[in-house]
């Protein structure tokens, strides 16, 4: 074994061992747990059955929650893209102090805990909060619109929490582009809009994809924001898992829910990547 290899091994082993013991093994145990049974009287029944999974697919209630979570996540991904792209583009057009300031402003929400930010939305979206006052004031509705304890509230809250990730991802991608390409397009007759659509946008696709994957995954697994803005009235999968584990104490079922959450998220992400790698813009990713 080369000395460099030995040193490297020594350096990474504490971390690897730690994660092996306190991450990989627990996850493996949960996977096994999801196949166990449960009875309200005797607790966990070590067995190997698919009962938990059947329960999820057979019951509209649980399926509905999964569907809702996916729906929310897709919406949030779309919204963060729609809001994040122009902002990332703006960042590439400014320089110096202005740019530093805007970057700090975009990043600062990440530093404040998600609870505080979501609480802020809780206040803003309350029936007597600012947003409703604005809506009523503008005459857009007759009575206060239900924003907290609703899917809309969760979407707004999650969009807010996750949009900085999208901005960063797209910004990094735009930064790497070659400015001469847009100049070349111009000399060939492409106006600013055409140049953007034909050159800048396709070349920023890696950033869009990376950002979308991050936002979608985080959105699917989000707990804090949906818990505060949706609570028990609008449940998402993460909240369901919390309830099963800490309230109903049906750990095997909770484990099945957890595994399914991971599975669905992975499937969507892989499908997304696969679709793009074969698609029209495949060249952009090489």
């Amino acid at each position, binding site marked *: 074994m080369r000395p460099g290899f030995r040193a490297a091994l020594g350096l990474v082993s504490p971390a690897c061992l*730690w994660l092996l013991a306190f991450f990989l093994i627990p996850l493996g145990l949960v996977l096994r747990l999801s196949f166990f049974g449960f009875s309200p009287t005797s607790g966990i029944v070590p067995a190997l059955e698919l009962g938990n999974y059947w329960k999820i697919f057979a019951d509209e209630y649980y399926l509905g929650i999964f569907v809702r979570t996916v729906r929310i996540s897709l919406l949030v991904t779309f919204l963060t893209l729609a809001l994040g792209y122009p902002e990332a583009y703006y960042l590439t057009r*400014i320089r110096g102090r202005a740019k530093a300031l805007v970057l700090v402003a975009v990043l600062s929400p990440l530093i404040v805990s998600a609870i505080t930010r979501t609480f802020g939305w809780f206040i803003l979206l309350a029936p007597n909060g600012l947003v409703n006052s604005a809506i009523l004031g503008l005459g857009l509705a007759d009575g206060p619109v239900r924003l907290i304890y609703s899917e809309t509230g969760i979407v707004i809250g999650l969009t807010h929490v996750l949009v900085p990730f999208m901005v960063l991802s797209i910004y990094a991608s735009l930064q790497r582009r070659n400015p*001469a390409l847009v100049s070349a397009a111009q000399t060939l007759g492409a106006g600013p809009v055409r140049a953007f659509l034909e050159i800048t946008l396709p070349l920023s696709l890696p950033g869009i994809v990376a950002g979308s994957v991050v936002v979608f995954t985080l959105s699917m697994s989000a*707990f804090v924001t949906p818990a505060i803005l949706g609570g028990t009235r609008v449940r998402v999968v993460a909240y369901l898992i919390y309830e099963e584990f800490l309230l109903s104490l049906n750990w095997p079922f909770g484990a099945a829910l957890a595994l399914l959450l991971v599975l669905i998220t992975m499937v969507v992400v892989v499908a997304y990547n696969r679709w793009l790698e074969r698609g029209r813009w495949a060249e952009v990713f090489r």
Partner: protein
Amino acid sequence: MPPEGQALTSTVSADVPASAGMFRRQRLTPLGSFNVLFIGFLLAPVVVVVLVAFTPEGWLKIPTTSFSLRWFRAIGEHPEFISAFRNSLGIAVGASILATAIGTLAALGIVRYRFPGREVVSSFLLSPLMVPTVVSGVALLYFFSRIGLASTLAGVIVAHVVVTMPYVIRTVGASLAGFDRSLELAAMTLGANRLQTFWHVTLPLSLPGMTAGAVFAFIVSFDELTVTLFVTGPKLVTLPIRIYNHITYITDPLVAAVSALLVFLTIGVVLILERLVGLDRLLGTQ
């Protein structure tokens, strides 16, 4: 002299000049206005929470005419918040020290040595970021319950290390990426052995990245809610959990005051981060 290459690649743009300084041109373009609105959207919830903390009322209202420190003083009457703060602090300190120690070693191993399986190890060490925090929490709860670590301080710290270590590795890794190996070689040709080189050259140069990583880990641990909900017990309530419970059962500005204090604290801590490493490096945009 303006660099020749740059002259040609800036396109004729309607808004900002190629020169620095946002205070030069007064014109606000559509993109510029969007930026202002976007930043407003990002900062709104945090600003709202901080404002509500100063309200003299007993309910969640944004103070317009009179401001009061009533709710800040009220914190003193709620010792459970203060003890929760102490708990969070202790846990965060413990977890960040541990995570920084083993995370830095791992980052050193990954960034500076080329060994077979390097990519796999790197992905493995960063994998907790990919798994939903709910799932990690659930897995740890199940695992701890079988080895007797559930609801213990040790258990919580272990869990926090799992959660924060990837951030340390990413941050330290990014800062080490620019590490100049020739400095170590120079030290060795001047007569330092491996240990001395490590102590006098490698470690000091890694210090900014390590500190940034430690601060990052601290913030993540301090704000951590989801995993902690599962692994903690009634005697070990952290501040985020206390806040979360308060929001879901009682809604008064007390929580806003606590959150406002946290915001001020976090801002102070981040300024340290920025001074040490610089934002561009952290984001990987450099």
